[in-house]
């Protein structure tokens, strides 16, 4: 195999989704009581909830991407 070792793709995915999720969730908390804003999303505080889902996904990706590789017994 040529080329130097690369970083695991799950790391940037984890970072991106953590960042996006945190921003959305914070914005969701700040706008939680804004009735007109969430009228369109069926009165669901979608920024907050979906932000949290993305945080969980990002954290999982980051966890699996940075976990040390399993050592295979020979």
């Amino acid at each position, binding site marked *: 195999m040529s*080329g130097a070792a690369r970083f695991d793709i799950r790391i940037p995915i984890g970072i991106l989704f953590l960042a996006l999720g945190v921003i*959305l969730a914070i914005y969701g908390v700040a706008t939680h009581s804004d009735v007109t804003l969430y009228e*369109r999303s069926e009165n669901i505080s979608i920024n907050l909830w979906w932000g949290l889902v*993305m945080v969980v996904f990002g954290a999982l990706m980051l966890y699996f991407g940075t976990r040390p590789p399993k050592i295979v017994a020979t």
Partner: protein
Amino acid sequence: MTSMTHLTPIDYLLMLVYFAVVLTVGWMLRRSTKTSTDFFLSGRSIPSWVAGLAFISANLGAQEVIGMGASGAKYGIATSHFYWIGAIPAMVFVGLFMMPFYYGSRARSVPEYLKLRYDEKTRTLNAVSFAVMTIMSSGISMYAMGKLFNLLLGWSFDMSMLVAAVIVLAYIFLGGLTSAIYNEVIQFFLIVFGFAPLVFLGLRAAGGWSGLQVRLAEISVQRGFQPGALTHAWRYMGDPSQNPIGVEWFGLAMGLGFVLSFGYWCTDFLVVQRAMASESMAAARRTPLIAALPKVLFPFLVILPGMIALAVDWHAPGVGSHAISAAGQGIIPPKIDGLTGGPLIDQAGHVVLDYDLSVPMMLIRFFPAGMLGLGLTALLASFMSGMAGNVTAFNTVWTYDIYPSHIKKGASDEHYLWMGRAATVFGIALSIAAAYVAASFNNIMDLLQLVFAFVNAPLFATFALGMFWKRTTGHGAFIGLISGTLAAAIHHGISLAGGSVPGVKGGYFGVHIVYRSELGQTFWTAIAAWVTCFVVTILVSLVTRPRVEQELVGLVYSLTPKPVEIDDHWYQKPSVLAVIVLTVTLALNIIFF
């Protein structure tokens, strides 16, 4: 012109975060991009799940997302045929049966396989048409992006295109194919996370699947079909006049399910390149199969929003844009008549809907500030990754298949790596030029797309015969391809879809066959091309001299040892994955019959 909606700082912040991550990925990968193999084939070291997600993402450009949503509104759930029979069987086939030759022959590109199997002229024909086509589709994609974001957000057409092009250029230039693949995987998850809540909210507003069925039944009747024509995939496929696609099951299964689908998924370097970059033969074979798993479910993510857009209304009176006139249906606005400024009316007196706006309207309708930024970032990401897919395929075909055979043979690896980066720059420059051509001469683009449809339709016959019949010769393949393309042009020239005017839509040799819809015509054109290529290739092969069998080991089925499935776990076996994918597909076809 005023825009349809406005973004708030939070939306821009989300976009900026995405751009920052994309560029960082390219920057970090520059150090592991040292040889041409790194640049064009990711050093053949990509794990199969990454290659698999990139495999579908490369195809999941925004035209796909926007186009499938539009088709959902036009044809209903039957649009999923483009996935369930128009992609899945071919993806399973390429993984199980063709990947051993693509990967096993160590060809670095699909045209290079043709060179190994046949000869230089067949390769050059394929490489040149593929190179021109990728540039063109990348250009059309950029044009669509510039136009859409201008309409939605009032962004400048030139600026949005330029910014997207520069970002794509930067990350491919630095990290090559790996960079493109990594960003395609990121984009895959962005699309899923951007569109899943859209479907959830949309279905809630429409009263679930049953509520949607009730509403779409009314619309279906208004359009002159049975009530269930928009919510059943197969029930009305017996007669082209009874379903909105306007095609019967045989044309659909043969034209779309066999010729076009196998021609694309099994031979198009844009997707096959992702599998060729994987770390082992087993991983390469798994790539399309892993890709097929989410592909089976994608109709729910991209087609449902279009159907929902027909069935829901704006959430409050007067909300939405003033540009959206009441003449539309659901939240889909009508097309605007350039002369009167009012809604466009067709010959039958019906309002023509601007179906391509179904998905963007859904984003505006259901997403508040914040989520709207996420949804539009997903859309932007898919535009960029569609462009990146085309550019990486172009620079590889240019550098491996065109440049060394016709311009400079036997140069050093550094030279080819340098050429790959240069090809990235001029590939993107040409795409931008193509985007401006599309913007000013729509007809030229239609014509070019038509020509390439003719070139592509017969391709699968050439590959299938090459891989599974050792007697096929280079002359046979070359003449077969040309005849297939001619057959497509002739069939298109003597046929026309009902309601179309002879010209670029066909009928230029006189109208002898009339189809119910343009899709019906397209499918049958493909069938004509394929059959002609298949027959002519066989006939010419029989009268020309075959190659020595030893030269074909690893390239032809009967002369190549069967791949042994030595995977660690049962669920890694290609055959097991294939059975799972096909079972799920069959089940969904029955559920939505």
